[in-house]
């Protein structure tokens, strides 16, 4: 949900690069269909891969023949580091879950994400209240899923 704020001719080339990536993806998909035993399995993905390659070529032609600056959604104030850390922390949670269990990895993830999303000043009250809320929210969801909805959440190898 990015807003269009400035015009950047470089973005057109980016679309061409993306189209090239889709062509590569289509070729890989086509190659994979050659390993399929039954034609019923390969006919649909093969048709889609071919259509995707043709559309990507059409996009490249469109961008090269009719050059028009694309919309650039970049926001100068936006923090790329926070974006990357958010994704990294969520993936870290998946890595920790089999070892520490859902509850502990959930609390660690929640606290780390809280730090990533914090733009206000950490007042003494916030330093006490926010972690307490974090633990309560994770415990609440854990209780709802593990006990009420009977979802078998991982307990963690270290605690087995």
């Amino acid at each position, binding site marked *: *949900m*990015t807003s269009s704020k400035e015009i950047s001719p470089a*973005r057109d080339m*980016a*679309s061409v690069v*993306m*189209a090239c990536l*889709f062509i590569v993806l*289509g070729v890989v*998909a086509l190659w*994979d269909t050659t390993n*399929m*035993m*039954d034609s*019923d*399995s*390969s*006919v*649909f*993905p093969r048709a*889609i*891969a071919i*259509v*995707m390659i043709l*559309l990507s070529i059409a*996009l490249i032609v*469109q961008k090269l023949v009719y050059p028009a600056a*694309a*919309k650039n*959604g970049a*926001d100068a104030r*936006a*923090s*790329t580091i*926070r*974006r990357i850390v*958010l*994704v990294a922390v*969520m993936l870290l*949670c*998946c890595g920790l*879950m089999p070892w520490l269990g*859902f509850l502990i990895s*959930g609390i660690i*993830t929640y606290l780390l*994400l*809280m730090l*990533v*999303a*914090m*733009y206000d000043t950490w007042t003494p009250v916030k330093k006490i209240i*926010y972690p307490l809320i*974090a633990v309560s*929210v994770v415990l609440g*969801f854990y209780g709802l*899923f593990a006990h009420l*909805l009977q*979802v*078998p*959440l991982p307990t963690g190898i270290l605690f087995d």
Partner: protein
Amino acid sequence: MPGIDYIFAALTPLNLLLALIGVIAGTVIGSLPGLTATMAVAVLVPLTFSMEPASALIMMGAIYTGAIYGGAYSAILLNTPGTPSAIATTFDGFPMAKQGKGDLAITLACIASVTGGLVGAAFLLMLAPPLARVALAFGPVEYFWLAIFGLTLISALSEGNLLKGLIGACFGLLLACVGVAEISADIRFTFGNQVLIGGIETVSALIGLYCVPVLIDLVATPDRHLKVTHVPRGFRFLEASAIAWRAKFSLLRSSVIGTLVGILPGAGGSIAGLVAYSEARRSSSRSENFGHGEPEGIMATESANNATVGGGFIPTLVLGIPGTPPDAVILGALLIQGIRTGPSLFAEGGSIVYTFIYGLFLATLLMLPVGLIIGRYAYKAIITIPKAMLVPTVAFMTIIGTYAIRNSISDVVIMILLGSVGWVLNRFGFSPSPIVLGLILGSIAEQGFVQAWTIGAATGELPKMFFGRPISLAIIMFILLSLFYPLIRKRWIKFRTENRQ
């Protein structure tokens, strides 16, 4: 029409209480991303085993209808459909919320859901046996064309670049092929990775493609998630009712579409919502506003997906074939209760069936106050909660919700990675909606296409198979209308303007 006795049987204090509890529980569960209506019904169905059959059915119907509506909350407030049937609600719901009209959007969704639910229940009450025969008239080729009809929405969702939208849809269709092929059980696009054999789970992909990009953008700036107005505006019920009244024909049409799609086994609320949205956009005088916060878009989707509840019960009760996935769970519960579904059920088990249908009306009506109250608190929570709380809470919900679908950490990893890819693609103009459409409609389209192809090839009537059946031709006509109507209308208006001058 069945007598008044059944209405009183449905209105006992116990049934009222069960309907209320069911609607509340369903709405709350449905609002959590990852927890679908099927899961809501499946999780709560053991509670009904010890109940009288009619009361059990009323509670299950209430959970189901509440869960379908609950999916609208996260679709509107977080751009993440709580249930797959609320996909099209994000198209206009989230833009409305960004414009500071999230409260109005939620009230509109509630009114539309109630309307759709009532229309679906009315069809179930009055036309169940004849309509059940429609389900049997749908073969593989009709399902294929229906999926293609859903895909025509890409032209509307591509925001000015149809090529990118179509490429995105192809990407989604290829993602839908990952894993074991449904028809011949070949393993496709796993590249030796065991994790991918199970395929890409649709709901986790939905959460990733819609919610992770919102989180990534949310964390990047100190700006508020949604525009906030400091003037208390209440439920905005009268304003929403006036909008709904103006769009009454669209609301009714979408409800009928939802009921009819609900009758088709396996089609479900997501297709109903997409088809109704497509039709509402095509026929609206404000079609250019669709996708940018058009109230009619929300109402079309929400009325259609709630109408599938009543519609889905038609083949379930009359033929014993579940119309939607939650109906399959309910069918199982009915068998445990000792109820045999089938054409004779309406005659032999009339008291149970008609008490249940009136109970469904009751649950749908209860959804109005319950939905408005819960919706208001959900909206207030989202706009007032500090960002340092909102981001981790939503991220945590996406993780636990995705995990709960198949108890799989790999699904969570796929969800996060797909979300990150979706964010990057969105930056370059490849919006997530066509990818999602491809992913959801891919398996239906493929199954229908391959089955129809096989039958057509075996009978030597391939063209007739695809283009010679009356229902197929009707759907093809709608596809062509959906694709070319905006163009034809534009040309017609231009022609008329030139003629006047």
